[in-house]
């Protein structure tokens, strides 16, 4: 009994501290400027004025749309490229496949930030500045995804492949009729992970967008911060809530799948 009280106290105290910044942001997004200046913790009334202002002051809806397109494209790209690569490594017996796997894993040692200068030049030469391909294509293949899917594909019995081949099933048909459906949990873990990380990306979109055409919502938020912090923090907080809502919801809904994927990555890594 005593133990239970201690645990609940710790749980509640910790969650108050962890959630405070976000709860405060939500609360501040409904406040008037006067309330913010006064240092109030809760708004006196629920008015969506600040949200309207946020959508009017910067093209927030357009930025949200861009972020969605970019994150969705990277997610699909990663699922296709990583699963194809992992399929080849597991199911096609050719010399050097272990070397290829090692090559992919070794990319984990290259910090993306160390490569941004030549990558920026490449994107410029391709004419991809301010385009969706510039924001998405470089992230289509990630070592984590190939690793995760390879580990899972290894658990699919080889006999299944053999018997499918005898039934006249081609290699590619086996890939999309058997391997992909059998890997749904891992694919969704990778998908959620890819969507989240892309949505939250900051440095790269800052570099390769210099107008509003394909600018993502993270950079839109930074624009808002530099434009409005002097005066209207409540509007900035409304914008912030709009930016974090989609991924927060996705995380909460997909938490169990994501956890399975990340745990598999951690234990076998």
């Amino acid at each position, binding site marked *: 009994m005593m133990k239970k009280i201690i645990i609940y106290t710790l749980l509640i105290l*910790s969650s108050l501290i962890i959630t405070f910044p976000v709860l405060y942001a939500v609360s501040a997004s409904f406040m008037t400027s006067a309330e913010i200046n006064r*240092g109030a913790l809760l708004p006196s009334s629920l008015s969506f004025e600040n949200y309207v202002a946020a959508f009017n002051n910067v093209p927030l809806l357009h930025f949200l749309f861009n972020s969605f397109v970019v994150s969705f494209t990277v997610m699909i790209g990663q699922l296709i*490229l990583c699963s194809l690569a992992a399929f080849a490594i597991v199911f096609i017996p050719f010399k050097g496949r272990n070397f290829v796997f090692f090559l992919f894993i070794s990319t984990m040692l290259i*910090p993306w*930030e160390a*490569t941004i*200068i030549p990558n920026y030049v490449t994107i410029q030469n391709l004419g991809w500045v301010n385009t969706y391909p510039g924001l998405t294509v470089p992230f289509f293949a990630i070592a984590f995804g190939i690793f995760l899917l390879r580990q899972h594909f290894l658990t699919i019995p080889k*006999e299944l492949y053999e*018997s499918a081949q005898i039934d006249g099933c081609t290699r590619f048909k086996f890939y999309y009729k058997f391997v992909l459906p059998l890997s749904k949990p891992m694919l969704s873990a990778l998908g959620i992970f890819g969507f989240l990380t892309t949505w939250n990306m900051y440095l790269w979109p800052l570099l390769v967008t210099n107008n509003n055409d394909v600018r993502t919502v993270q950079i839109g938020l930074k624009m808002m911060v530099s434009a409005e912090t002097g005066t209207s923090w409540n509007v900035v907080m409304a914008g912030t809530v709009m930016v974090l809502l989609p*991924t927060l919801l996705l995380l909460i809904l997909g938490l169990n799948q994501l956890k399975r994927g990340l745990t598999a990555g951690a234990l076998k890594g």
Partner: protein
Amino acid sequence: MEIEKKTNTSVQQVKKPVHKRKSAKRREWENLGAGLLYLLPALLIVGVFLFYPMMKTLYYSFHVTNASGAVINFIGFEYYRTLFESSAFRTSMKATFLFALYTVPTTIIISLFLAVITNEKVKGVPFFRVVFSSTLGISVAAGATIWLLLFHPSLGVLNNMLNAFGLSGVQWLTSPNVALISVAITTIWMNIGFNFIVLLGGLQNISEELYESAKIDGAGYWRQLFNITIPLLSPTLFFVSVVTIINSFQTFGQVDILTGGGPANSTNLIVYSIFREAFYNGYFGYASAQAIILFVLVLIFTYIQFKVGEKKVHYQ
């Protein structure tokens, strides 16, 4: 059914011994071709956007370039020499290491604590798990913007609370002694979600029976924690520490939003420094030399951790 088909294969294989060698050779080539075809898209992306630019960064670091990346002339190790003599870069390196020191152990300890208390079997635990994971869903830009307001000298909640207790406010982001700590606090908060999820997953993988038998042997809560939980969790702790330290070397967004590298370069972490030299000042070569140092740093730390990890980590 599967067994039936399996026997079928062996029958077929026995039937055609004559063609076996030739077709085996051909199949080998076919497999190689097919394998490379499936791998091609991923190899292309990794080649063009990781291996090539890494090499190119090394190349840039030995050359003077113009602002669009065209090489003007070779200067050898000149940039590296300048870097090590530059007090700004020394400040930046010091900040990078201090930042890792501030964030990595704290993040892991807090996340481990949260994972341990949500691994207890009490009602409502799933809710708390969602709460503690939630910061993984918060982007760097959004998280840093919220903390920018919390740290605000006159409007911020933190100083308001200090004032309420009769203490004077802190210059969270404008004092050279405090700014790095403020960026670290923001980062720790944002990293808790990921670390918590992975550590909780690790805890849940530890078999219940071990605790049962420990209880029978009369081991108390703390002895169970230090003699069972921590040793068996060590592979996960190891993974988490590698990832967190590498992440800390790659910090950018929170610096850009909270401090812009200031005051007096006290939060000018290495990636921010690379970004500024390359894209504000147009010194691609000089920035590339820093990028190579970042690469080597990540390499060394991963190597050390694997060396230490080999000895300390307890695999089941």
